[in-house]
């Protein structure tokens, strides 16, 4: 089989292990929670921001989007968001609702990111939502699917809930994007610090509270250790970057005091991030790396209170809900 045919089969073969309709329900439910608890409170604060201090991201420029969202528009935008969220969740005019939600989310996310602060946790879900809006099979597990199903009885419920096998390309594309995001994170560490990053000292600095997030906490900056003198002309010291911020927990501070622990955690982080693309080479590797990814994000949350649960929600796409349900059913019947 030629390479092209193999790629074609890998990308487009019908997939029976992924149920995009169920993923859509879970993913959109997470967006609804995110909108209610984070995005709209943030938009309300951002509405009064001055356009003089706008640093628009490319999406704003490409589509000529207004940023920030003008205050009088907020109630209308809120209403539209509720409508497309509910329609996407229930699956009423699913395709139209998903496309509208993906576009709305890109706009709102871009306005939030257009003042100098990049909300990294929302970037991957925004792209996954775009893929989902275009994906065949995303309209399973929906009111639309129920209405158009000609079958009756248990067969109808199964077909409506899980949908028919569809081309697997949306799952593959999301997988490539997930790999790109993790690899980018690992590559950035190697690009800026080399494999010296694995010595644990950078992680120790953050875990010990060297740069904290919280009311009254200032943004702090890091100096370059290798910039040429000419590049230090502004202040003479040579500031290279802003420090990122976290809220170290008791566990984080305890680990931060141990050079062995910070070294091990740094190596683990690099392994997970740089190694993530191996998931493209088989289901077993995918399962292993998803478990490692869960451990990484839960570990970051437990030590620095940095919430990347959005990535874990994306992982739900790779779960075979149909097999899970069938196995659960078989076990239940055996129990009887």
């Amino acid at each position, binding site marked *: 089989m030629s390479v092209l045919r193999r790629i074609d089969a890998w990308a*487009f073969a019908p997939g029976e292990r992924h149920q995009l309709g169920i993923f859509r329900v879970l993913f959109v439910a997470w967006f609804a929670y995110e909108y209610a608890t984070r995005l709209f409170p943030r938009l309300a604060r951002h509405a*009064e*921001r*001055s356009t*003089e*201090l706008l*640093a628009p991201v*490319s999406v704003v420029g490409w589509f000529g989007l207004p940023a920030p969202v003008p205050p009088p528009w907020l109630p209308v935008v809120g209403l539209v968001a509720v409508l497309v969220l509910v329609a996407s969740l229930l699956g009423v005019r699913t395709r139209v609702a998903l496309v509208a939600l993906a576009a709305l989310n*890109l706009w709102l996310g*871009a306005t939030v990111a257009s*003042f*100098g*602060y*990049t909300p*990294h946790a*929302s*970037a991957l879900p*925004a792209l996954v939502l*775009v893929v989902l809006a*275009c994906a065949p099979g995303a309209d399973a597990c929906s009111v639309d699917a129920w209405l158009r199903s000609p079958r009756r009885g248990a067969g109808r419920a199964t077909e409506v809930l899980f949908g028919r096998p569809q*081309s697997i*390309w949306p799952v593959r*594309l999301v997988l490539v*994007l997930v790999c*790109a*995001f993790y*690899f*980018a*994170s690992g*590559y*950035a*560490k190697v690009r*800026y*610090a080399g494999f*010296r*990053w694995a010595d644990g*000292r*950078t992680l120790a*600095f953050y875990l010990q509270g*060297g*740069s904290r997030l919280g009311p009254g*906490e200032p*943004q*702090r*900056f*890091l*100096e*370059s250790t290798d*910039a040429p003198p000419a*590049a*230090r002309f*502004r*202040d*003479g*010291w040579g*500031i*290279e*970057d802003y*420090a*990122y911020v976290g809220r170290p927990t008791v566990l984080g501070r305890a680990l931060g005091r141990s050079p062995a622990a910070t070294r091990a955690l740094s190596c683990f982080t690099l392994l997970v991030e740089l190694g993530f693309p191996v998931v493209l080479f088989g289901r077993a590797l995918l399962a292993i790396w998803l478990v490692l990814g869960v451990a990484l994000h839960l570990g970051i949350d437990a030590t620095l209170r940095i919430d990347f649960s959005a990535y874990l929600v994306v992982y739900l796409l790779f779960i075979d809900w149909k097999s899970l349900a069938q196995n659960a059913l078989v076990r239940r019947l055996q129990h009887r």
Partner: protein
Amino acid sequence: VTRAHKAFAVALGVVLVGLEVRAVIGPYEDWPFTSAPMFARYHAADAPLYEVDLVTEEPAGQRHVLSAGDLGLGELTFKRQLFARWYGSTDPRHPAGHHPGDTPAQFSARMAELCGRIARVYERRTGRTVEAFELEVRRLEEGRAVERRVVGRYDVASRHFERRVPP
């Protein structure tokens, strides 16, 4: 899967993955595309830290550190934009602001532009007038400021940023 369907899927993939790869190579911070540079720079706990501030000078002579809240921004948002887009990193390809071949003259022009914008927003939001801004950098060791340098001064009336050559 029809050919048209495949072509659409490939086009979507090329656009999304291509833009993400562009952000990684750039490197850029261009939400939703990112080079994911969080926590990537090497920094040991005993290395110095810095704080950057703008100090306002009002007509009655009062001076105070400009708060991000005075501009309707959060601290991280304001300082990160100030640094990456306007001040400039020693890294000419900082993900949030590329300044290749940056010079003192370009730096002064950028700071003049920023301070002019800030003066307008500050006066509109607070109702107070400002005569000048001083751009100040403090070096911190073990959490305490050990040295302060004034990097330059912006005069609101003349719209001129005068850079101070560091020692």
